[in-house]
C-alpha cells in the first residue's frame, strides 16, 4: 500500500525553541489518520511544518513521492494539500462565497465542487452572501473545511475540527469528515479522543515533540494503558 504522505524525522524550531524533535508520520492513501497527544505536544506544529508554514530544519516530508520540505507554502498547497487551521482562518472581510472562491486554483473549481460541498454542508448555501464576521463558530468550521474541498486536493490537514463546538454540531462535522474522506485522504489533529477514535483508522501519538507510537485505531481503543499514559483519561 502506497503512502500519500511520509514525514520522516522532522525537527522544527520556532525562533530558538526546538518544538519538534523527531516526528515520523505515515499517511496511507485513503481514509483518516489521527494525530493524538496532549496539549502542546506538537500536533499543530506538525501540520504547519508539513504545510511549510513553519519549515523544518531537518528531516524529510514526501508528498506523493515528491520531497516538499523547504519549499514555499503556496507550492506545497498547489501540489494538492488543503489546510484547515486551528483558528479556522476565515477571512472576515470576505463573504462566504468569496471565502470559497479564493481557494480556487483553476477557474471553475468551485462550480464543479459546489454540489458536493453544499450536500455536505447545506447550511453554507443559505449563508452564501454573509460576510465571514457574521458566522458562528460551527459555521466557520464548516466553511473552513468546505474551502479546503474547493480545489482538487488529495490530502486534507484538519486541525481540531471539534474544538469549541456544541455536541450536535460535532456530530454533523464528524459525519461530513467521514463522508469526504471517501474522496480525499485526511490527516486529523483531534484532542477529543472519542471523536478521533470514531473517525480514524490509523493513529500517531506525539509526546513532547516526538512521535512515540503509531498503529491501527482499532488496536488503540483497547489499549487502556497507552491511552492513560499519553492522552490522559480517555
Amino acid at each position, binding site marked *: 500500500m502506497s503512502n500519500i504522505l511520509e514525514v520522516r524525522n522532522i525537527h522544527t524550531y520556532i525562533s530558538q525553541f526546538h518544538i519538534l524533535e523527531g516526528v515520523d508520520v505515515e499517511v496511507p492513501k485513503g481514509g483518516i489518520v489521527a494525530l493524538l497527544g496532549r496539549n502542546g505536544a506538537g500536533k499543530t506544529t506538525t501540520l504547519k511544518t508539513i504545510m511549510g508554514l513553519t519549515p523544518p530544519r531537518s528531516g524529510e516530508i514526501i508528498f506523493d513521492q515528491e520531497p516538499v520540505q523547504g519549499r514555499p507554502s503556496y507550492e506545497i498547497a498547489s501540489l494538492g494539500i488543503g*489546510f484547515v487551521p486551528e483558528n479556522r482562518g476565515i*477571512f472576515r*472581510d*470576505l463573504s462566504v462565497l468569496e471565502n470559497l*472562491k479564493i481557494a480556487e*486554483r483553476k477557474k471553475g473549481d468551485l462550480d464543479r465542487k459546489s454540489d458536493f460541498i453544499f450536500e455536505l454542508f447545506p447550511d453554507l448555501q443559505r449563508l452564501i452572501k454573509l460576510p465571514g464576521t457574521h458566522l458562528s463558530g460551527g459555521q466557520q468550521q464548516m466553511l473552513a473545511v468546505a474551502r479546503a474541498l474547493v480545489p482538487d486536493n488529495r490530502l486534507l490537514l484538519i486541525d481540531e475540527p471539534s474544538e469549541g463546538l456544541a455536541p450536535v454540531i460535532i456530530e454533523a462535522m464528524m459525519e461530513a469528515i467521514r463522508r469526504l474522506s471517501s474522496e480525499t485522504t485526511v490527516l486529523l489533529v483531534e484532542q477529543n479522543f472519542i471523536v478521533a477514535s470514531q473517525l480514524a483508522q490509523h493513529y500517531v501519538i506525539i509526546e513532547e515533540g516526538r512521535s512515540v507510537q503509531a498503529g491501527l485505531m482499532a488496536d488503540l481503543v483497547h489499549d487502556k494503558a497507552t491511552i492513560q499514559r499519553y492522552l490522559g483519561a480517555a
Partner: protein
Amino acid sequence: MPNLLQTYRKNRTLIITLVILFLLLLLAIQGMSTRDWVVTVLRGLAVGSITFLVAAGLSIILGLMDVLNLAHGTLFMIGAYVGWSMYVRPDTVVDATTPFLLVLAGFLLMPLWMPLLGRLRLGRSATRVWPWIALLAGLALLALALTRYPLSIWSGTEYQNSPIVWNQYFEAGTVQENVTPATFDTIIAAVVDWGSLLAGSVLVGLAVAGFAIARRGPTAQAARSVARPLMWFALVAAVAIGLYVVNTPLSDFLLSLSSNALFVLALIVAALVGAGLGGLMESTMIRPLYDRGIYQILLTLGLGFIGVEMVRSIWGRTGFTMPKPALFSSTGDGCPAESISGWLQHQCSTIIVDIGGEPARIRTYNELFVIAVGIVVLIAVWLLLQRTRLGMIIRAGVQDSRMVEALGINVRRVFTLVFALGVGLAAFGGVIAAPATGLSDTMGATLLLSSLIALAIGGLTSFPGAAAGAVIVGLTQQFIIRYGQLGINLPFLAEPWKPSPPLVPASVILLMIIILLVLPQGLFGRSE
C-alpha cells in the same frame, strides 16, 4: 429597517463623529458667504483628492504587508518630476530610455547565473572574493558608460538651461527649436558605450548571484529555461538600440504633440516609472526585512532622503511650475467661461459661476479636474478591491497573509504587485498635483505628513478610511486658510480672530488628536 438599526448600533461612534464633522462643515457657512464656502469646499476636496492618491497606496501597503512606506512621499515627488520631464522634455526621456533598457537587459540574464555558477567548483576564498571584484568592475563600467552617455538634458544649476527656462519655451511653443539632439560622435563610440553598459550590468548581475552562492552554498538546480532569459535579453537590447536609431524622428513626433496628449503620456510614464521603482524596492530591499519592522522604517526613511537628493541633483534645488495642459490654460477669447460647455469650447483656465448672487471664480484644473481624477481613482481602486480576484486576495491578505499562502496563492508576488501599484498611484498623483501646486523638493515630505494623518484619522489600513481621512485633512486645511483671510467672529472678541498660517498644519494634527481620543481606532478602523 432592522438592518439599518443594527448598522447604526454597531457604528454608533463613527456615525456620530461623521455627523459632527458634517455639522461643523455646515456651521462654517455662517462665517463666510455661500460663494466662499463653495470655493473653499472645492479647494479642500482637491487637496483631499491628491492626498488620497498617496494615502490609498500607503494604507493598502500597510494593511497587506505591515510596511509603513515612509518613502511614499518622495516617490510621489519623483513621479511629479518624471512627469514634468515627459511633458516638457520628451526628447530627454527618449534619450534616457536607451541606456536604461541596456542596463535592464543585462539584469534579465540573471536567471541563468545561479545554475551556471553552481556547477563551477571554486575554492572557498575564491567564492568569497570574485563577486566583490565583479561588482566593483561592473559598477565602474556602468559609472563610466552612463556618465559618457549623450543626453540632451536641462541643467539643475545653470539658469539658461534650467527647467524654468524650458517651461518658458514650452509655454511659447518653442521647445523643439531649442532642443539640440544628443548623439554619439562616431558609431564606434556608440558601440563601445552600449557594450560597456551591457557588460557592466551583466557583471553586477553575476556578482549578485555570486553573493547568494557564497551565503547559501551552490544550488544544484538546473536552469528552468535557457532560451527564455536569452530571448528577453536580445529583445530588450534590440529595442534599446532601435530606440537610439529612431531617436530623432521619435523625439520630433513627441515634441509636436499637443500639451493635452503629452500630459496623458506624462501620467502614463510617471505611473510606470513609479510602479517599476516600487516593484524593485519591494523585491530587492523590503522583502528580506519582512520580519523586522524597525529596519523597514529606517530603510524607507533613508530611501526617502536619497530620493530627495537625487531629485535635487537632476532637476536642481529651485522649485518650478509645470505649465497646465492646453485644455485648462487659456485666458483668451471667451474666458473665463460661464459654463462647462463654454470651458470645453474655449479651454479656459477658469469658470465663473454664480453662487448665492455672487460670481465665483473656479479654476478648471485645480478645482474641477483634480477632484474628478480623485473620484475616478477612488471608484477604480474600490472596484479593483471588491470585484477582482486580486482585490479578494488583498482583502484576505490584510487579515492573514499566511493563510492565503496556505491556500496555494503566491503571496510574495501579490506583495510585489501591490507595492508597485501603490507607488505607481502615488507617482501618478505627483503628476496630477504638479500643474496645481508646482514642483519642489519639499512637496513629498509635506504630502507624506498629510497622508499619514489621513491614515491615522481613517483607521490606518481601511481603504474607505484613507479616502475619508484625506478629504477631512484637505477640507480642514483649506477652511483654516480661508478663515485666516476672512477672520472668524468669536464671542467676547472685539475683532474677528484670524488663524495664522502655522495653524494650517497644526489644525490637522489637532483634529487627528481629537478624533483619536474619541475613536482610538480611527473612523473606519477595526478594534482588534
